[in-house]
């Protein structure tokens, strides 16, 4: 019984690890930075409106460049 529960818990954990981190850990870390920046800049409306989308673009650029085919 406990072995079966352990198996399901492990499969559940593996699903979330693959979903959140998988082979692009930089996206996971980058999104934490984006959300952190949104929280930090919530009282600076103009800065938040500009910087939060730009940070998302920076995460995308970094991850896409990292995933390129190398010579």
């Amino acid at each position: 019984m406990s072995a079966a529960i352990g198996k399901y818990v492990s499969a559940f954990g593996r699903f979330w690890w693959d979903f959140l981190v998988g082979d692009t850990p930089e996206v996971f870390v980058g999104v934490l930075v984006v959300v952190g920046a949104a929280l930090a800049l919530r009282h600076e409306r103009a800065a938040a409106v500009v910087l939060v989308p730009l940070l998302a673009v920076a995460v995308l650029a970094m991850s896409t460049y990292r995933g390129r085919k190398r010579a």
Partner: protein
Amino acid sequence: MTSTIVLMLAVFAASAVEMVEALTIVVASGTTRGWRSAFEGTAVAVVALAAIVGAVGVPLIHLVPIAVLRVVIGGLLLILGLAWLRKAILRSSGHKAMHDEDAIYAKTVAELAPGEAGATTSRRQRDAVGFVVAFKGVFLEGMEVVLIVLSLGSSSHHLGLAAAAAGAAVVIVAGVGIVVARQLSEVPENSMKMGVGIMLTSFGVFWAGEGAGVHWPGSDLSILALIAFFVAVTSLAIPLMRRTLPGAERREPGSVPSRLDEAASS
């Protein structure tokens, strides 16, 4: 109103993309192991996914504070959207092979083709392998749809609408699948995935900011501005990434290496 329409479009497109992938597996299972088991596996998976939406989505809306929900869900949407967008840019710029439903179909059929022992199984009998393969295909592809429905639906308090948009996509893709049978490679999956990636990323930025307390100019209308912004970013990123292809300087500007080029160079 604007965000509701964009939300429904995003859920519909995301569900359609995932369901095309699931349909490939169901058709492969049906043609090799029998349609009865493939349909039963599909039906059980759809019921299980609907139960998850009901069991998790309703408590999410009623028990979790909306600001917390939006920050967490904004983050999840960003992870999902950026991953889809990254993959679509890499595919469009030639850094990654295009998603090939025909190849996936052929591989699944080869794996499922009954051997000597299975050859006696009648197409009308129940087949455990066919059931499990169809169930897993629909359930695993559908889990991403469930996450999108729960994320977009609960953060905007439109869970019913989001579920209806996903349901409509399932019905339409299944209907088209019946008509076109194995011609799933005709579906412009990469373009759809790029569109969905842009919408999920835009919603992710919007909800993460909104939940954190950022007041977007124009409120919901800023979602459209974010979508336009990420469309522009993607349009710029594809040609820039093409330039980083190995041997790009020897090619004509703007050309993408074909699979024949890749095969010849390997």
